[in-house]
């Protein structure tokens, strides 16, 4: 890791209404084409049981708080091939989406319970309890909160033994491009943890591709 001359962990402004943009900042490590690798714990109790996961960002529309991509699970116990799903994400940008999910079977209580599992969330908690975070200024906050909801299986049928009924609470770190998440589905094992690191790193140099739809 490069030596840091300035401590980036110093608290950033969380509240306060700065004039203009209060949306989370665009971050190159979360742009289209970026990929991430890591693991997902199958249960919160058995730490050893985890499958390897690759994620790639395929689309990003910050104006609509929209992000989408694919997730590939490699050593799934019951499948003979890697299982790929397509997911769509809601960026908690206080404009399009707040910290309250308001659907997919998640209550505000479930929301808080999951968000507080991220160490970067507590500074926001008091305001989120008031209005879901609507009045927060996230434009300089180095973490981006999202919900990822899988939409369909890309390479297997729905009878593959896996479910995509739930969704992920996700926290992305703008600092190093790492991603943490928790899977939420009332009918699945609770707090399955997703941990991913950006594949763009100093070993091979940083590269960014681009495409644009007309």
């Amino acid at each position, binding site marked *: 890791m490069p030596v840091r001359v300035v401590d980036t962990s110093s608290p950033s402004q969380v509240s306060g209404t700065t004039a203009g943009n209060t949306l989370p900042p665009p971050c190159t490590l979360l742009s289209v084409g970026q990929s991430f690798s890591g693991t997902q714990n199958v249960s919160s109790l058995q730490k050893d049981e985890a499958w390897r996961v690759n994620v790639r960002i395929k689309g990003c529309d910050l104006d609509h708080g929209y992000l989408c991509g694919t997730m590939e699970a490699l050593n799934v116990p019951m499948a003979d091939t890697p*299982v790929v799903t397509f997911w769509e994400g809601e960026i908690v940008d206080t404009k399009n989406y707040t910290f309250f999910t308001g659907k997919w079977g998640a209550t505000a209580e479930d929301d808080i319970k999951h968000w507080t599992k991220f160490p970067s969330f507590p500074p926001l908690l008091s305001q989120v309890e008031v209005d879901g975070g609507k009045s927060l200024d996230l434009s300089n906050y180095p973490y981006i909160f999202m919900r990822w909801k899988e939409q369909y299986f890309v390479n297997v049928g729905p009878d593959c033994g896996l479910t995509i009924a739930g969704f992920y609470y996700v926290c992305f770190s703008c600092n190093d491009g790492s991603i943490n998440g928790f899977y939420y589905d009332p*009918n*699945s*094992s609770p707090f399955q943890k997703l941990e991913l690191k950006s594949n763009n790193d100093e070993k091979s140099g940083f590269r960014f591709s681009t495409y644009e739809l007309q």
Partner: protein
Amino acid sequence: MSLFGIVIRQLVGNQAMATSKKVITRADWEKKLNDVKVKKEDMNKLVMNFLVTEGFVEAAEKFRFESGTEPDIDLATITDRMEVKKAVQSGNVEDAIEKVNDLNPEILDTNPQLFFHLQQQRLIELIRNGKVEEALEFAQEELAPRGEENQGFLEELERTVALLAFEDVTNCPVGELLDISQRLKTASEVNAAILTSQSHEKDPKLPSLLKMLIWVQNQLDEKATYPRITDFSTAALEDPAT
């Protein structure tokens, strides 16, 4: 994504709700009907509207004289319209076309469907009169180009020309084209177009009121038993079946 967990589903039994229809007696119904006030002038207007739209000039004049109801259109224009209608009804289609063009040349120039139907009727009349050669020539020169402009017209044209293929048209599958009802259909289409061009409604109001009555009764049948009107010529209330 995740492995399936234990899914518990509660099974909720569906209890069909027992429903019963409301019963309205004849006395109640008549009382309700009597509470609705319909002005005589409005009834008269409905009658006048029917006479004018259907083109009964003499009856309209008499009715105006007797009831004092003013027609909503110049009665003189009805005569022109009726002449066109009559011409079609008696098979003089060409005459009808010329009369429409004198009344208002825009009608047929901006209404391709009506123009096609009139030309089709002309063809039918030629076939009816056994003028086979002329009919063929007419179909080719006048109607075929319309078919090229519109797929629907082409299909209708093919159906009409099929009349020529049968020795005994009374038994052919498209024989209904020779029916008097075909003439009436075309005549009423021209009638409607002329009315519209004169900013008048093309259909009289009375029939649509009757249609509404039938619809409303059908709706009501599902919810209540009440004195229905089944015979519309007498409008007699029938006792509700119990």
